[in-house]
């Protein structure tokens, strides 16, 4: 485990997410933090191994709470959705790691700072996150679609992506595939209508 305290001390706006042991870096500071991590002799995080986008849908949870007068009251707790970009940094020089950096943004207007100016290895992976999640990377030298074709409009890895209906027949569909099959094949109307 790498000691993260010096980073938190040097950059107070950086938060520590203890559950994931990750640093949550605000966008304005991302380049600076990454550059410092790369060049600081104690860290030398010269190798950005992995870059991944993560999409979380907003969740609504309904809980029933008994009121003192005996009636039930519904309490709705809402957790907003989010869009994250996760970087895993290692050091090839000192052979340690990882330090996980996260940039969190909104689902409606996902914009983060590109770390490609510091790590060239992030170039294609950031393009991939842009292609599949629609996350804008500010400062990326060549932000284009990478896996899907240029005319494509959707962002298919988002959790609320609806794919085109090109269902292929399957004899025993189940779960999500069954739902797709039902949506694809027409329902028989009532027999009188069919006869007419």
């Amino acid at each position, binding site marked *: 485990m790498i000691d993260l305290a010096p980073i938190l001390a040097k950059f107070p706006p950086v938060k520590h997410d203890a559950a994931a042991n990750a640093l949550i870096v605000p966008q304005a500071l991302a380049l600076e933090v990454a550059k410092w991590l790369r060049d600081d002799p104690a860290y030398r995080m010269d190798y950005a*191994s992995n870059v*991944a986008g*993560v*999409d979380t849908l907003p969740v609504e949870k309904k809980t029933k709470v008994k009121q003192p007068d005996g009636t039930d009251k519904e309490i709705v707790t809402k957790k907003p959705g989010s869009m994250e970009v996760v970087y895993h940094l290692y050091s090839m020089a000192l052979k340690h790691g*990882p330090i996980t950096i996260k940039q969190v943004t909104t689902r409606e207007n996902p914009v983060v700072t590109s770390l490609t100016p510091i*790590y*060239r290895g992030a170039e294609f992976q950031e393009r991939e996150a842009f292609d599949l999640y629609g996350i804008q990377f500010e400062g990326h030298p060549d932000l284009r679609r*990478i*896996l899907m074709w240029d005319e494509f409009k959707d962002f298919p890895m988002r959790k609320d992506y609806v794919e085109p209906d090109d269902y292929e027949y399957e004899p025993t569909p189940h779960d999500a595939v069954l739902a797709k099959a039902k949506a694809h094949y027409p329902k028989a109307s009532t027999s009188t209508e069919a006869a007419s």
Partner: protein
Amino acid sequence: MSTETIAPREYQIYSGDDLRTNVLEISMGPQHPSTHGVFRMDVSLDGETVVKLKPVFGYLHRNHEKIAETTSYLGSMPYTDRLDYFCSMTNNWAYALAVEKMAGLAVPERAEYIRVIMAELTRLQNHASLVGFLTNDLGASGTPLLYAIREREHILDLFEWASGARMMCNYMRFGGVRNDLPSGWLAQCKKVVDDFPAFMDEFETLLTGNEIILSRCQNVGVLPRDLAINASITGPCLRASGVDYDLRKVDKYGIYDRFDFKVPLGSVGDCYDRFMIRLLEMRESVKILKQALATIPEGPVNDSKARNFRPKPAEAYGRIEGPKGELGFYLVSDGTPKPHRYHVRPPSFINLTVLEDMCLGQKIADAVIVLGSIDIVLGEVDR
């Protein structure tokens, strides 16, 4: 900004008065006899010299990550086989390792040994075929490739015997491997491993001193050390540039700390170094295999409780040294039986970052060799 990172070199077009050329743009691929699978490069040429090269991906984008997020953890195991379809065993291992890290599962001793044996066999056949394909790109149409595939068949037979399939093994499980080795397997494996050096000698006599290979690979597609690190290159390509970074030594995952082996390093970082690194790594793999086969203990091979489980909300990044580089899996669990996020860190995809840098200023015919020496598999590049 461009001063921060190491940007591609600018290549100057010669524009003396005596000679005028126009830049010619060629789209090589996705169907092309030399590209490895459906890979496309948009190349700009000045005469025969590459002045710009942009890789185009996505012709084999099979939505592995999206499908994995709609199925159970175990359900993704067969899909990992199809990432890098030469190396299903190491793909299985990387995924199992990430899940084990997230869920805190332990692996029995014998299973660890089996994993090492399978991974090193995979490395042998991957490197042998790669050298075959590379020489195929060089114009040695068929012969070395046929030799390599002949040898690969012996290893595939071993895989088939243990797992039931030649290529898509689906053999590793969370907390071990699917089934124990059949009786007689180890003896046959010993025989294959013992015979392998003879093939390597034959292969090396045929290739390493070959005039054509020397003149076409040496000082072609040089990858400088600093650029290799900055661009997150991993695996044999990184080590050919002289960076000592092998996850088997660095992370010591599995039981790799018990074996005695060396990490070959290159000095120039050209195609020839990348080619030689593969040959040398095969020798080291044979060494590891011999040690593992001699010391493999008896015992259980998996933990039958870890079938369809529901990990606690957590996230993990597990990585191994695949034959092509660092293969990593990033998993986020939200407490349901399906992963919330499932991400693959594909080595061949990221190794292509420097393709343009290595090809600028080279001839178009050399671009094909540079690509061949990186060792990509499209199933993994596009996923």
